[in-house]
């Protein structure tokens, strides 16, 4: 079992998660983040702080979502660690609303 970043992060990339990650297990591409499962200690601090609920324990993944395990592993290996909060993508607010998360934090 581990934690993965799923679909909702795409085009949001709010990066709240990296401020609470105790082990710096988040890696980032231009439009989203991924978790390095080998580094993640499953503390769960990132789950509630994501404005679009993009992070999930693998245990809680819906059937058919298991692909995120592989995607996170492969992309985390190829991308740099994100240590500090960065500005979200330009369309993040629109995407948040589109995903049904309206209330700004």
């Amino acid at each position, binding site marked *: 079992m581990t934690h993965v970043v799923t679909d909702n992060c795409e085009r949001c990339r709010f990066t709240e998660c990296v*401020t609470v990650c*105790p*082990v710096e297990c988040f890696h980032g591409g231009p439009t989203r983040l991924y978790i390095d499962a080998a580094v993640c*200690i499953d*503390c769960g*601090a990132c789950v509630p*702080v994501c404005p679009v609920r993009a992070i999930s*324990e693998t245990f*809680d993944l819906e059937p058919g979502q298991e692909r995120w395990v592989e995607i996170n592993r492969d992309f985390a290996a190829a991308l740099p660690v994100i240590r500090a909060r960065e500005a979200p993508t330009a369309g993040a607010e629109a995407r948040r609303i589109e995903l049904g998360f309206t209330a700004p934090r």
Partner: protein
Amino acid sequence: MSGVIAIAVVGSGPSGFYAAEALLRSDRKLRVDLIERLPFPYGLVRYGVAPDHLKLKSVTAVFDRVAADPGLRFIGGVEIGRELSLDDLRAHYDAVVLACGTPASRRLDVPGEDLPGVFASSAFVGWYNGHPDHASCSDAGLVADTAVVVGHGNVALDVCRLLSKSAESLAASDLPEPMLAAFAESRVRTVHLLGRGTPGRARFTAKELRELGELPGVRVRFPQAASRVLAALETDGDHAALLPTWRALAACGERAGEREIHVWFGVAPERFIGDTRLRGVRLRATDRLFAQPPGVHEIDCGLAVSCIGYRGLAMAGVPFDAGTGTVPNAGGRVVDSCGVALPSLYVTGWLKRGPTGVIGTNRADSLETIAALLEDIAGREPKSGDDVVPLLEARGVRPVTFADWQRIDRHERDRARATAPREKVCSIDGAREFLGRAERS
């Protein structure tokens, strides 16, 4: 040591290490002394995280990287208020960050709370984790077949789980040998987990709650009827995340098990009963939904552990909110009763915000405190105070260095049983003796 801003961080748990990390990563050239009361670093990672949650403990690798920064010095075995005063720190450092955590427990304030067999979580968790303040406890109350755990948070779940696990599965943890032996001989077979609120008010996290249902040979029961628990949850939209976990737990009540965990809602201890030691607890209803007809309920038990939260300890010269057990602050700047910030004094972690959140929560918290500190020292000349170590040595104190700790760490790993990562040194004297032997040989 002159010419550089010097910061003292008091306490080497997660919030202390993350404060140090944030300081060392800043653009400002500075040095950090991480001052720790014990000869052992890592605070609640070593003494609070459950001994069977070994993956969480691997966060210490991050702290070790912080400790390896040449700008950081670990000064162990030094307590503020004993070996050094707050005034000493003020004289020697440009700023002080308090990251001392909340080592005391909230009290239930009910009769019988001081009977032998009744423990606060700090004492019981401290005992099984080998904390020097609590490890010498020779009577952990594991003599009767029934135990009561008070509180609906993750600490209570940890205690329930450890009381309910078999000796074989507990062996794969960093429980020290004497505590492992005590659990192996424990007669406890039934644990009552009491919470004063409704299921929706429980502060468990899903992962920890789920673990309860995965314990081999343990049956989880709801004495107030599982259907009522689920019905209460269905109407509590805020806690939908826990609903599948509660459902799974309710289902596991059907299976047989030689050990049982009874989960109660809407009840609190009214008094602990016993003459020379705990014999039972009388409950009172705290929520009408779960009120027990005919009103009064007693549980015979030989052990009670109250896990209802922690409090910080007041320090001389530092404002303290006795209600919350925390240090009043504005974004990490310690403030007096008028809300005015005290010069160069900061607070972070549980002592700042109270005992909530997980390890990573302290990282964001320490980032906030250190951002305030860095803002305040921007453009300020270093005080160039004297190094504190000669002062300590003049007082006959030899600080424990991080290299010393690494020697203790290797020793603990070398002597561990085959299934455990380490066998902790459980006393300050034990650590000092080991270091003395290591130095002579």
